[in-house]
């Protein structure tokens, strides 16, 4: 029943009630009471509040991105990973700085046609590796995962380096990112790292114009970059001596062990082959027992690997001239090691040679950019 004299300005609560009551008497379907001005005002308020919160979240997310240090390893390699065309990563190398400095993806591509991506962070513990790998497998479906086992030597239960935790900000999936942070830091620091601003807001005075670029510039390596970070310096070291008498360390970090096994299980669950890689490093004598332990655990899962520090597997590296520091190889060392690795991978796995495939053009571009910078390492194979 419509009230002909009704005007919206005159509508009050009493009118609504009387209109409803009248329709009840006549037996007609009761009219829905009209919203009062106050109710409309409140509704508008809630809508605007929701809009404001959404706008603020977008602004704050961007502000957090700008303020977060764009470490070329870890955070940038993760950001960049999302832009790699789907189905174009055959080999995924995960782990510590030994991965991104020693495994030269450009050599693997140039000489073997292997499409490999280095997704690693400096001093990355296994619980971070697990999160990176989980996220990486969500986005791509590699045929093979190369797992750096250096983290088995880390004895601290939590990471006390902000840098390592901040690298997880590159993981876009918020749940995985929070899980990583949760595993990385002490409980009392969790909120601070989860929100991000308490950790990075003081960087405002270090901000450069390039920090506003989305995605980041990746140290001018271009968006086709595949995660390899060269170390162009030399430090002389002796070839490491290894004591083969002992095979079990006195203490292994349980937390690292737990996530090492989780990584293996994750790969099995995702039907992705995984092999352990012991990257060559000058300081290996301290690591040998831990590497042995890792191989022992992996064996239980039917997983094998290659330890390039053992005399029988050592690539032809001159530790006097091809080390960048006490742990990492320099460019020359990484080229020699990667050639050795490429040979082994070709021999052990049925990895397709994608050179010339237009779908893998980003690897061509990446290699070209790199060889333009370091032409001395270019081989006639390319």
């Amino acid at each position, binding site marked *: 029943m419509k009230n002909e004299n009704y005007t919206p300005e005159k509508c009050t609560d009493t009118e609504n009630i009387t209109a409803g009551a009248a329709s009840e008497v006549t037996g007609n379907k009761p009219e829905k009471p009209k919203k009062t001005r106050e109710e409309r*005002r*409140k509704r508008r*308020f809630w809508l*605007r509040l929701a809009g*404001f919160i959404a*706008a*603020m979240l977008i*602004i*704050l997310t961007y*502000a957090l991105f700008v*303020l977060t240090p764009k470490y070329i390893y870890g955070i940038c390699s993760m950001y960049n990973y999302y832009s790699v065309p789907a189905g174009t990563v055959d080999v995924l190398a995960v782990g510590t700085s030994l991965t991104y400095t020693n495994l030269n993806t450009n050599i693997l591509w140039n000489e073997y046609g292997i499409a490999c991506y280095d997704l690693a962070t400096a001093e990355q513990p296994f619980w971070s590796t697990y999160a990176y790998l989980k996220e990486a497998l969500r986005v791509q479906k590699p045929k093979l995962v190369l797992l750096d086992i250096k983290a088995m030597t880390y004895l601290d239960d939590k990471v006390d380096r*902000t840098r390592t935790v901040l690298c997880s900000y590159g993981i876009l999936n918020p749940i995985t990112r929070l899980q990583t942070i949760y595993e990385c830091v002490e409980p009392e620091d969790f*909120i*601070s790292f989860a*929100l991000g*601003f*308490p*950790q990075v*807001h*003081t960087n*405002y*005075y270090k901000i450069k114009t390039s920090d506003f670029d989305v995605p980041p510039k990746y140290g001018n390596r271009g968006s086709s970059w595949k995660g390899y970070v060269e170390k162009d310096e030399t430090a002389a070291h002796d070839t490491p001596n290894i004591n083969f008498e002992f095979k079990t360390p006195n203490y292994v970090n349980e937390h690292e062990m737990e996530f090492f096994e989780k990584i293996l299980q994750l790969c099995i669950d995702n039907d992705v082959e995984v092999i352990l890689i012991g990257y060559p490093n000058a300081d290996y004598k301290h690591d040998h027992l831990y590497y042995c332990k890792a191989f022992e655990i992996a064996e239980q899962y039917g997983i094998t690997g290659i330890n390039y520090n053992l005399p029988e597997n050592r690539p032809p590296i001159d530790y006097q001239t091809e080390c960048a520091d006490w742990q990492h190889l320099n460019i020359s060392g990484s080229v020699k090691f990667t050639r050795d690795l490429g040979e082994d991978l070709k021999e052990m796995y049925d990895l397709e040679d994608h050179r010339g495939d237009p779908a893998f053009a980003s690897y061509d571009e990446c290699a070209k950019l790199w060889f333009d910078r370091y032409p001395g390492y270019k081989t006639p194979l390319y």
Partner: protein
Amino acid sequence: MNILSLEFVVFVLATVIVYYIVPLKIRWCVLLAASGVFYGFAGWQGSLWLVLTAALSYGSSIWQHNLLLKERAAAAAEEAGAETASSAPAEADKKVCASRKIKIYRKLLLAASIILPLGAMAFSKYFDAIRALFTSSPGLAIIVPLGLSYFTFQCVGYMIDIYRGKAEPARNPLKFLLFASFFPQMTQGPIAQYTQLMPQLEEGHRFDPDNFTAGVQIALWGLFKKMIIADNLAAVNSAVSTNNRGWFILLSVIIYLIRLYCDFSGGMDVIRGAAKMLGIDMAENFRRPFFSFSVAEYWRRWHISLGNWFRNYVFYTITTSGFGIWLAKAGKKLFGKKAGRYFPATISTIVIFFLIGIWHVANLNAVLYGLYFGLTMGIELLLEPAFKKLKKKFRVNEKNVFWKAFTLVRTWILVLLAQYFAITATPKEAFGLLGATFRNWSFANGWAQFTDITYAIVWKVAGLAVVVLIIVDIICERKPDINMKLARAPFYVRWPVLIFLILAIVIFGCYGADYDATAFLYTHF
């Protein structure tokens, strides 16, 4: 729970949600529960102290009120008796005695009920400090409950109001407990009056978008002042010494005052904002004190609720007492009729500021700080008739811009002088620093004085924020209701302001790793 912490933000939002969900009649229970949780975080000892103080005030106020009713009845009977006094004088005398006796009982009851909480407060605050004057052995290290002064002053004020018959006693002890413990005021005040706060607490409020928005705005503005200005400027105070150049010492004292203002008023704004979201208007504690044209006005704008409390419960008590009347007589004899009239007020002012001084901290500098302000205002009061004459003689127009500028600068200088006692630990240091202010005014390589203390960018950020503060304070001085106007403004006006504030706080504010969020200058009172 620190009011700058994320926990506090979550706590306030949770309280706001629950408050507006439950029925109107029991909304005060939500406030009481929230206050209990908030205070519970500060430890059970403090909660016990608070409950005991509230229980004492509640019980004594009911007793006091009953006595007041009896006294009034007796007085009425006396009046009636006076009319028949001629017929039965002995009977009338008896009745007069009854009302006087009740008055004496009431006074004794009031004295006992306020001495107990005030004495306990004084003991906990000053015992160790006084003991340290005589012995070097370690003190008792008494745990001072959170907001001790604030809830003690509120309860004492309430009991005096009941004694004076200015308020009806609370009937519900839990409601009174809420008045004494209302969580936003526990960290920094304000010291609320029962008649102003209690009706708002028990009323229950319907959700009002404008109130909520205004509350958020005040709180954000408070965080801006505290986290960007006060905390970024904090480094300068620990760095200042007599070895610095004169201009730098003076600037440091100015910076200290700005920092103190931003620290305290910023915290207050966060508190007021939280209460405003619940629909409760808390008394304003700061009204742009740097726009004051006299020291007295400065103190009417600075820590207003503390000044009001002392004026209502100490100043009037002294001036209207027998002692006050005696002072008036003595003043007239000493300074003549006109100036003498101000003598009781002068003495009361000095006493009040002495108390305010030692309320801040138990040391000699605080005493001198208080006495300095007391004497300055006392002299201002005594000389007021003479000033009026002079102004008339020289035809001074008080609305003239130059006169206003002069009085403003004069007030600033007088206020700044006191800060030398606040910034140092002993009178010797204070006078030493004051003396050093007038030496070595070389400006060579002056910027290095600042960058030696902290990064240049921090100074620039704080400096820009102070400029924003000055602009906002000028706007607020002209339009005091600007906050509510902004809350009602179209979203395209309001949003940029809010986004600016949030981003500024999040990026330039001091928090996170290595930041001591508990470092409010005005906590532990």
